[in-house]
């Protein structure tokens, strides 16, 4: 466990040493504040468009951080050959994967806390309220979603040779699932036949990342989501992450470490 935590610690340090997070955060803050400075029909209490834009930027930024940070972990270690002394410590390959996953996931969690605090502050400046319950639920579900994404990218990093191709493919998969994942069943029923059955099978197999996007609840001030539902989504996300990490380990354990 100590090995895993040590590896995770290195990844977290990498996040705050690199400029990715700072650039994305400043960009998010800047765009949100520029949008917030616009006044429509002399009404300074209009806020939902601002919440919408801010949350969209937070989702994009967090996905960029998760994918780019994770995609370079194992290829960078292999390229610089630091993976060889690392595995000779002794650190097993399974520990390496879990450590990298935990580091990236925790780093994303830290970034999310900063982003959501900024979102809360911007919202409170107009609505004069801090609905902490729904903020916590949104942040938690967002983090669980990023856990699946990190595991998926880690799996991609042992399958694809270049981090860039891995990142591109993972971005396409993640955005595809976010936009269409929940509707594949309807499309499959309309298609019918063998292609419909295949599509339905894909629908059941993919991780349903769209569940974790509860932006509408925050934007339109809906009530809290049931905690039991949140727990169910958490369990689903953790199981999917574990499944992807297991697949990563299976591929990685038989892989040669030199390029």
């Amino acid at each position, binding site marked *: 466990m100590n090995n895993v935590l040590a590896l995770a610690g290195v990844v977290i340090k990498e996040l705050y040493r690199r400029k990715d997070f700072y650039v994305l955060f400043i960009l998010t803050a800047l765009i949100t504040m520029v949008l917030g400075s*616009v006044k*429509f*029909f*002399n*009404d300074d*209490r*209009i*806020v*939902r*468009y601002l919440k919408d834009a801010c949350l969209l930027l937070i989702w994009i930024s967090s996905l960029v951080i998760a994918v780019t940070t994770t995609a370079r972990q194992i290829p960078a270690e292999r390229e610089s050959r630091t993976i060889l002394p690392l595995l000779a410590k002794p650190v097993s390959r399974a520990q390496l994967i879990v450590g990298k996953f935990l580091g990236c996931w925790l780093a994303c969690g830290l970034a999310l806390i900063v982003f959501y605090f900024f979102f809360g502050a911007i919202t409170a400046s107009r609505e004069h309220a801090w609905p902490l319950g729904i903020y916590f639920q949104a942040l938690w*579900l967002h983090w669980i979603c990023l856990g699946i994404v990190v595991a998926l990218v880690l799996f991609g990093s042992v399958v694809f040779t270049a981090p860039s191709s891995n990142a591109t493919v993972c971005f396409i998969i993640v955005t595809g699932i976010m936009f*269409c994942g*929940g*509707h594949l*069943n*309807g*499309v499959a*029923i309309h298609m019918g036949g063998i292609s419909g059955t295949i599509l339905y099978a894909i*629908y*059941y197999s993919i991780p*349903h990342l*769209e*569940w*974790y*996007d*509860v932006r*509408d*609840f925050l*934007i*339109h*001030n*809906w009530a809290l*989501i*049931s905690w039991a*539902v949140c727990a*169910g*989504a958490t369990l689903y996300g953790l199981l999917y992450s574990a499944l992807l990490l297991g697949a990563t380990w299976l591929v990685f354990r038989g892989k040669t470490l030199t390029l």
Partner: protein
Amino acid sequence: MIRLALLLVFVCCFTLATQLAPVFESFQARSGRSGSPLLVLVGDSRRLFANQFFVMADVYFHSGYYPTIFDARKKEGPSHLDVASHEEAGGSKAEHEEPDEDDQFLGKPKDWIEQFGRNFFPTVHTHLQGPNAREIMPWLKLSAEMDPKRIDTYVTAAYWLRTSLDKPDEAEQFLREGLRASPDSHEILLELGRVYFYNKKNPRAARNIWELALDNWRRQNLAGEKPDPNVQEQILGELVRDDQQSGNLRQLLADLEELAKASPRKGTLDKEIQDVKAKLAH
């Protein structure tokens, strides 16, 4: 040497800018468009954006409960946002009201994934009420920026501004912006008259505007442009209301007779006409 080259590039850029600026300005003047970089960038596709922004206003009006392109709509028609702004008597639902059958675009869940997934987006049909309607305004403003000739945008925004938000001055200003883009619009004139009649309590100005709206409607009808007969009925309805308020029975009789020709509620109006005639006979 490098500095000299950079200086040369700078001089070239400056000269080019002085040459291109007048050309760009004359292009703007010819095309009659505003010089907003956003409009120049999106070109004629701005109408698509205008429609999309209007839809976004409707999404906000329903607090996020809205069909996606994958969801089957029961019937095509105007949005609830649009309908509410055209119906003075109000047909809007209270917030957190149960959905009608027509509004249940989701249908029954097909599997457990879909059923569970419905916990993560709004599934209750509600409409924004009172001052909360302000949240749709940014999208309507953007829609008008994108397509200044989209009349529904002005009418809808002005309706919510003058009713729920109690901002008649802003409503009037926005409608006048719309009139500059579409000077013959009887819909915008109808709404502008309402601002004067109901909010600014200036029935004389309202009457003049409604009469102008009616003239525009008739002119377009004669030109074969097939204007919406419902708008003519609404204009005449407002004129009748003004007559009733002012107590001008002769004008009321004339407007009621005109309204009876245009309205499908002929029976009810005939009775009213008889009543007015009886009052005039006394």
